[in-house]
């Protein structure tokens, strides 16, 4: 074991880029702060390139503190891809809303560093620190819409509940350490495989850790904050919460449960399958009654956390593979949908009520078509990435005989169809309520939407490339 700097090359590049962005923010004109997105994109792109170059390398770094393996690398690719897309859509958003703080991009870079660390961590202490970096940066980003008191309110809610859930996580880590004498994943696993009995403290630790990550992933019964925080947060940050932050929490939990506590799989499988059923039910049913599209997508993101837990409970290699594939598909369609909504909402996020989407197909034929395809993919209709993701996930669950879980998941998706299709019906079959000029579509938003559309249909028709990468990454 040695100090291998290169195992954390992407994180180091991204940290440096974040620090440079932070220092250059005061030197850039107030009116041009949003253009700091370009150097931010450069930093994220370099980190992405570093991960691609290192693909296939494996080992441990920093005296066994981090793993370098295909799982962590694929997760990093996912986080960096989403971070780039969020940065790109945030640039035009910050300009339009006159939120003149270039620190936005520095904080987003730091949050991404935290997520990458969570994916490659080999020790509970480092996982905790990664989660904290992600959380602290996100608390601030949620409060970015300075003119809207709702933004501050949601940031405060997220902060207080988040601090509370962090305490649970830390308490759980303390119990694991107390029961086994170590916080290193592999050492805990070794201790358990040779132990004659499992102390109760271990079960307490397991449950508390699940609470801590369950909160971040917005899993029922720890989901209550989600709609309020999404509603107040700036749209690019709602995107970040729904896509990256959720993925990071699930990936870290996956690593902990699969790698550190495989001997307790019976316990956590039971716990998580109950949570999966509740999450799918609450998410889909509550989404039916929403009148604000941000809140609807918040409940939809809760429902999707439930589908992801179905793959988690499968507890086999194809489950991991399906989860990773689904996370990619989910990132594509969710980032796309949020970007379209961001353009249509106009300045000050004025038009976010679902009824505002009446007849938008007349005003914005292309945008409406894009939003419709993202919603169709979220609903899981064939020929889209969302369908393929669900298919692989449920196949993996059937492989390990979780029949009831799959039946409930299918019923939940059927309920979900209704609220996604309702928006499409409003867009295409209703008359517009008022006459508005078409909203201006900035170039950066066009690029993001185009990439996400191509990705959604490409993965829906030919999922092999990402599926192969995911199968290489399913190392547990």
């Amino acid at each position, binding site marked *: 074991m040695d100090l291998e700097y290169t195992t954390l090359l992407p994180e180091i590049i991204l940290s440096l880029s974040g620090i440079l962005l932070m220092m250059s923010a005061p030197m850039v004109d107030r009116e041009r702060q949003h253009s700091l997105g370009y150097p931010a994109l450069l930093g994220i792109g370099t980190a992405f390139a570093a991960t691609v170059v290192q693909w296939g390398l494996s080992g441990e770094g920093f005296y066994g503190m981090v793993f370098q393996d295909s799982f962590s690398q694929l997760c990093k690719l996912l986080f960096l891809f989403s971070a780039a897309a969020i940065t790109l859509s945030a640039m035009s958003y910050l300009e339009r809303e006159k939120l003149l703080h270039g620190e936005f991009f520095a904080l987003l870079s730091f949050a991404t560093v935290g997520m990458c660390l969570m994916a490659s961590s080999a020790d509970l202490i480092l996982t905790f*620190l990664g989660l904290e970096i992600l959380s602290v940066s996100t608390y601030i980003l949620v409060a970015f819409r300075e003119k809207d008191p709702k933004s501050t309110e949601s940031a405060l809610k997220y902060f207080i509940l988040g601090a509370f859930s962090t305490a649970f996580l830390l308490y759980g880590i303390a119990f694991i350490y107390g029961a086994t004498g170590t916080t290193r994943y592999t050492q805990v696993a070794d201790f358990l495989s040779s132990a004659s009995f499992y102390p109760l403290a271990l079960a307490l630790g397991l449950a508390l850790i699940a609470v801590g990550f369950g909160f971040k992933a917005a899993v029922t019964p720890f989901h209550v904050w989600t709609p309020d925080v999404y509603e107040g947060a700036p749209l690019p940050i709602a995107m970040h919460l729904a896509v990256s932050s959720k993925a990071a929490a699930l990936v870290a939990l996956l690593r902990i449960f699969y790698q550190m506590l495989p001997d307790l799989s019976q316990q956590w499988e039971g716990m998580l399958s109950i949570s999966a059923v509740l999450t799918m039910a609450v998410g889909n049913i509550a989404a039916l009654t929403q009148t604000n599209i941000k809140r609807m997508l918040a409940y939809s993101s809760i429902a999707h956390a439930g589908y992801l837990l179905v793959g988690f409970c499968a507890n086999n290699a194809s489950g991991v593979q399906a989860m990773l594939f689904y996370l990619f598909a989910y990132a594509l369609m969710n980032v796309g949908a949020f970007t379209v909504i961001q353009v249509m909402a106009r300045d000050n996020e004025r038009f976010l009520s679902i009824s505002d989407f009446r007849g938008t197909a007349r005003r914005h034929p292309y945008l409406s078509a894009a939003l419709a395809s993202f919603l169709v993919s979220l609903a899981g209709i064939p020929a889209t990435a969302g369908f393929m993701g669900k298919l692989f996930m449920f196949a993996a669950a059937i492989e390990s005989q979780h029949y009831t879980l799959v039946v409930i998941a299918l019923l939940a998706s059927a309920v979900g169809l209704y609220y996604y299709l309702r928006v499409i019906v409003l867009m295409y079959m209703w008359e517009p309520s008022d006459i508005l000029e078409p909203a201006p579509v900035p170039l950066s938003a066009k690029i993001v939407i185009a990439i996400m559309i191509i990705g959604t249909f490409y993965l829906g028709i030919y999922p092999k490339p990402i599926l192969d990468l995911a199968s290489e990454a399913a190392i547990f």
Partner: protein
Amino acid sequence: MEHVVFYFFAGVSVIAALTVVFQSTAIYGVLSLIVCFGAMAVLFFQLGAHFLAAIQVIVYAGAIMVLFLFVTMLLDPESERFPSNRLVKTTILALPVAAFLALLLLQALAESWPTLDVGQEQTGRIETIAAYLFRDYLLPFEITSILVLAAIVGAVVLVKRSD
């Protein structure tokens, strides 16, 4: 003698912690938290973690609690009292949960826990701490700086918003 000292300070820390929760005047709550941290420092000292004991007094009982006191005085918590009928409702809900957790905790604590094998002459020495800080836990130690940096940037952004 060792046992007497342990039980005395353990008792003090528990009573002080309970006072923090049940004290209705915020300033007294903060002061009892200082007492609690001081008693904990003695327990650390008894375990042979001298460095940790010193840090506990300097950082927690000293620096952080002074900040707490200042903030409490600035915010004037006397003006905002908790409505008492809500207090009763939350207590009724909290009691069964707390009882369940206490039972679990007692059960867990009754089991045998693995002990760390560290010689008395080794612990608490600056050398041992340095080996942990700059070798085994080098990365968490360094990464904490990113965490603190994010928090500082965040504080600046939140303050700058108001103008």
